[in-house]
């Protein structure tokens, strides 16, 4: 029956990250913060980041929402922690391509690691926004960081 397809979206990694989110909580001394909301469903994510010497020294998120938005935020923080800002933004772009059904570099895919699994959301167009929320917020924070 139709529900079987659910396993493709709600893979173990996703469920696990939703149940046990990594880097959830407010970080100390953030250099940038951004809250984004999906007005249609009320999903809310606030990301905070501490950039030190061009590198992401700390990152965290708070908020509430569906399994996908929470898991995606958790996976993102894991991927971006420690990356330099340029790489981080490249990966955010790659993730954004992936979830819209696009192809990405093998290297980027490897760097995304578990987060690349969220790419399966591409087959669930109604949920792409949920997956994208945290990454969009982070991109805006890093954009500001780079510009300032």
């Amino acid at each position, binding site marked *: 029956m139709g*529900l079987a397809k659910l396993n493709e979206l*709600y893979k173990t990694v996703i469920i696990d990250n*939703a*149940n046990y989110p990594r880097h959830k909580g407010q970080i100390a001394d953030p250099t940038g913060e951004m809250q984004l909301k999906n007005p249609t*469903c009320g999903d809310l994510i606030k990301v905070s980041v501490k950039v030190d010497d061009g590198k992401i020294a700390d990152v965290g998120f708070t908020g509430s*929402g569906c*399994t996908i938005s929470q898991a995606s935020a958790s996976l993102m923080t894991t991927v971006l922690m420690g990356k330099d800002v340029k790489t981080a933004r490249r990966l955010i772009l790659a993730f954004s391509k992936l979830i819209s059904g696009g192809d990405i570099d093998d290297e980027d895919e490897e760097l995304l690691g578990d987060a690349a699994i969220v790419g399966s959301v591409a087959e669930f167009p*109604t949920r792409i926004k949920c997956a994208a929320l945290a990454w969009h917020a982070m991109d805006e924070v890093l954009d500001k960081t780079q510009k300032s």
Partner: protein
Amino acid sequence: MSKGLNDSRTDFPILDQEVNGEPLVYLDNAATTQKPVSVLQTIMHYYEHDNANVHRGVHTLAERATEQFEAARDKVAAFINAPSRKTIVYTRSTTESLNWIASSFGNAMVNEGDEIVISELEHHSNVVPWQQVAKNQHATLKYIGLTADGELDMDDARKQITDKTKIVAIAHASNVMGVVNPIKELAQLAHAHNAYMVADGAQSTPHLKVDVQDLDVDFYAFSGHKMLAPTGIGILYGKPEILDEMEPTQFGGEMINEVHEQAADWKESPWKFEAGTPNISGAIALGSAIDYLNNLGMDNISAYEQELVDYTLPKLTQIDGITVYGPHDPAKHTGVLSFNLEGLHPHDVATGLDMDGIAVRAGHHCAQPLMEYLSCEATCRASFYFYNTKEEADRLLDALNEVKEFFANGTSKAERTV
């Protein structure tokens, strides 16, 4: 499988398709309804034979278009028992109707210190336009509360509506709580305090017999797309003497009587409100939708939907860990069923149902003040129309149980700070 009221299901080609490999069960009728073949044929016929701009031409097509456009207005008037075609203004939607009432009549009537009374269960379209009037006029926007059961608290209504009240604006039926509000009583209450009564009929007009003269409302607003007609056409009913006094909010095109370089004046109601080329095919198709509804009979539609609710609601409330909003007495409940499953985010539930071919809505349903009031961020909502069946209700109930199980055993007790 049964075929809905009077086998009407077969008139809706869209319902006969698979979604995600399962037969579609469309339960998002409170958002918009599907369109019967007869309405689609009306649109096609219009564009293949009669299309022209209305009120403007002396040629044959223009006359045919005008004739059909105005005949549809008469059908709308008869459908809600309005006194004449002059009380029926074509708009885009309920939202536009309510905005016109608020921004023209509302801003003209409400003065500093006055009060506007709405309720905790209103749709944004019957909230934000009044917030704007309150802000513009330095007036106060007050809310009538709900009973524990989710019904309008009429004791509170009697407290909130006072001699300071200028306008009372309430949904005839709720798009979340599944209740029908006592508009006639509210109108009496409003009029006793010399206030005007505005009813938002978006969720009532498609499902029950509406009689604006019996309700004695001053304004009534509804949308074609929630009652078998296409998108882009809505209705604003107003009492004739009120519409006569009310200023248009848009200007230009055929609403005009005379234009000189520095001044202009308007035609009479309802035409003075209809600036520019209106949604002609939409209006004519609304007429056709009304023919279809009349043919089924509004009382039959209400009765059939009541049967579906009588069947579904008790089974739904029995699901372990479910919260069903609104009255639990099926007799008090419309075919709009809002609920949450414990520990599951409504979006995840809706995706689960979608994978099973079942279309429900998840979100705040444009009723954020109500969500605040209920202290939840979002709900799932299944909403029936006369083409739905008990078999479909069963598919919903079964799927809900499976979704629950999937998230419980499949892998997860997936989070959610809902």
